């Protein structure tokens, strides 16, 4: 499996070329044809949610630790970054004036714009969002490390799930009263005035990086150690795997993704309310990863988009006056899917670069040549 030539995060230039192509097509061909509402609800928000769900899948799907804490770390990332950009947003600005191209007529059929701006953005705002997002992710990671180390040391999976639900409720209550300490969060009334910095570019990069990092981690020795904890903790220990270390590692990495996702969410809608970060919504990521298939990255990404598009889409597709029925159809669909496809949409099947690398089987000759020696049959 030696790869040569250009590689970034283990992927060839072909992979990254396809990623850039997908971005360009989405940005210039698909998105301009969508309304603002659909751009946000069907494309940008699901990108954020998919990253968050990949993180939860690492914790629950791959490592086997039932967690409802993802939503709490999502809130931590959102509020941390929002407070930073709220305070600094009006001061930092460094616009870069790029080039604007007139599009020839035949291209306008594909790209529905008369002119396209390249390299036309605010470097200061980009750096601010990046910094605030990383700060949100880092704080989520730190808190999850402290929480995870104390709780995972003592509690098995189901009990851990209840403890993490408690964590999410604590976070929500703290946010309800946070205006006593940080006035600009405005507590239970909800935080307004957050700069709208999240663009399709940022959520796309987040999803790509979250996916590639997860893929690389899972298809490595570290990933096998993480999965072994899910499969049989006792056997994993007996094979020399430090079970606690890999539980904490998965929990911290998953929570960090939640923190980053939260930061992007905060700057997407420019409004944060503690009500949104309540324990009820904390089941959404869990539903998504079970729909997609536990321990399946392709499934998580597909399920997020299916979930987001169908849930919001039903507002449009259902006949007038029947919109409320979506909350009947949605749970029934969940019940039916669990009855007829409990392993999720994708089951065990990963697609494309998310597939496990294939290792050539050794032939018998090769074994004896390398000193494998005598073969034993039973």
């Amino acid at each position, binding site marked *: *499996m*030696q*790869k040569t030539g250009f*590689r970034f*995060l*283990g992927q060839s230039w072909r992979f990254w070329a396809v990623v850039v192509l997908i971005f360009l097509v989405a940005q210039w061909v698909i998105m301009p044809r969508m309304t603002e509402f659909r751009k946000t609800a069907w494309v940008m928000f699901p990108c954020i949610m998919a990253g968050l769900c990949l993180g939860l899948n690492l914790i629950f799907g791959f490592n086997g630790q039932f967690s409802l804490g993802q939503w709490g770390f999502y809130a931590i990332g959102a509020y941390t970054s929002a407070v930073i950009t709220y305070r600094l947003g009006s001061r930092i600005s460094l616009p870069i004036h790029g080039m604007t191209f007139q599009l020839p007529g035949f291209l306008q059929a594909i790209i529905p714009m008369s002119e396209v701006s390249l390299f036309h953005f605010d470097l200061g705002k980009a750096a601010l969002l990046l910094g605030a997002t990383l700060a949100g992710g880092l704080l989520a990671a730190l808190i999850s490390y402290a929480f995870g180390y104390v709780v995972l040391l003592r509690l098995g999976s189901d009990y851990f799930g209840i403890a993490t639900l408690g964590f999410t409720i604590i976070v929500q209550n703290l946010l309800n009263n946070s205006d006593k300490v940080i006035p600009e969060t405005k507590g239970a009334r909800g935080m307004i005035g957050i700069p709208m910095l999240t663009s399709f570019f940022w959520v796309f990069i987040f999803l790509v990086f979250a996916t590639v*990092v997860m893929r*690389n*981690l899972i298809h*490595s*020795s*570290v*990933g*096998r*150690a993480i*999965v*072994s904890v899910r*499969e*049989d903790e*006792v*056997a*994993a*220990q*007996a*094979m*020399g*795997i*430090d*079970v606690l270390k890999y539980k904490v*590692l998965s929990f911290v990495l998953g929570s960090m993704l939640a923190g980053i996702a939260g930061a992007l969410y905060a700057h997407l809608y420019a409004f944060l309310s503690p009500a949104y970060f309540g324990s009820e919504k904390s089941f959404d990521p869990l539903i998504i990863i079970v729909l997609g298939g536990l321990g399946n990255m392709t499934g998580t990404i597909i399920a997020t988009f299916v979930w987001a598009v169908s849930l919001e889409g039903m507002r449009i597709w259902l006949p007038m006056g029947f919109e409320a029925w979506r909350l009947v159809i949605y749970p029934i669909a969940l019940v039916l899917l669990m009855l007829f496809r409990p392993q999720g949409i994708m089951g065990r099947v990963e697609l494309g670069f998310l597939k496990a690398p294939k*290792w050539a*089987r*050794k*032939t*018998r000759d090769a*074994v004896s040549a*390398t*000193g*494998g*020696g*005598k*073969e*034993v*049959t*039973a």
Partner: protein
Amino acid sequence: MTTCPPTGPVVLQINRLCKNFGGQVTSQGIEGGLWAVRDFDLTVHEGELAGLIGPNGAGKTTVFNMISALISTTSGQIAFYGKNLVGLPPHAITQLGIGRTFQNIRIFPRLTVLDNVCIALHPHAGYGVGAAVWQGSGFDRKESALIETAQELLGIFNLQDKQDEIASNLPYGEQRRVEMARALAARPKLLLLDEPAAGMNPAEVRTLMESIHFIHDQFKLTILLIEHQMRVVMGICEQITVMDFGQVIARGNADQVASNPRVIEAYLGKQGGKPGRRD
């Protein structure tokens, strides 16, 4: 078979090992409960193939579980090459060089055969989270070396064609071989085999005995083996310790043990008929 006097350094030294389940700790010690293991002593020298036998419920697996720290030790000492093991976490004991298999097979059922073996190689992978995420050339080299080692181990047990199969889909005998390959992947100096012949027919037992001899020689291993079928132990073990009701009732080579009246009474049955199981 030959019995040479034990030579070489002591690999495993167990002194007055006790395990009590469910007892109350009082100022006078532990009251009540069940003494699964009581004052158990064992010395295993380098290169030995030692056997630990006894009827069902004698406490053999409990001893194994205390050595590998899967259950806590009530009292007593366990030393591995002079290093105290009591109080260490299980993964640290494995990393020191004690590998094991389980009485009820404990392979990772939903993973491939190759992944099963690779997991045991993880402490020797030589790269961490950073390299795994970055996947540079160093990662490629170490990962290929790891896979190659795993494939060689599978080759020894004639499982190289099964590497991509889901482990739980294999027949019983092959699952046992996967477990042995996995135990060897942890690079043990001392291998603990818990009833490796359980559920096997006589032909399978014969080839299993061959493979145990083979890995014993090939990997310069010290092996401690639990068995309750006398036939298996008598055939391969140089030093045999017999347990009953948590205590050692006899030790010696196969002939000495087989002729010991306490063993015959506790284990083989009073009539002195064919060696068999008490249960």
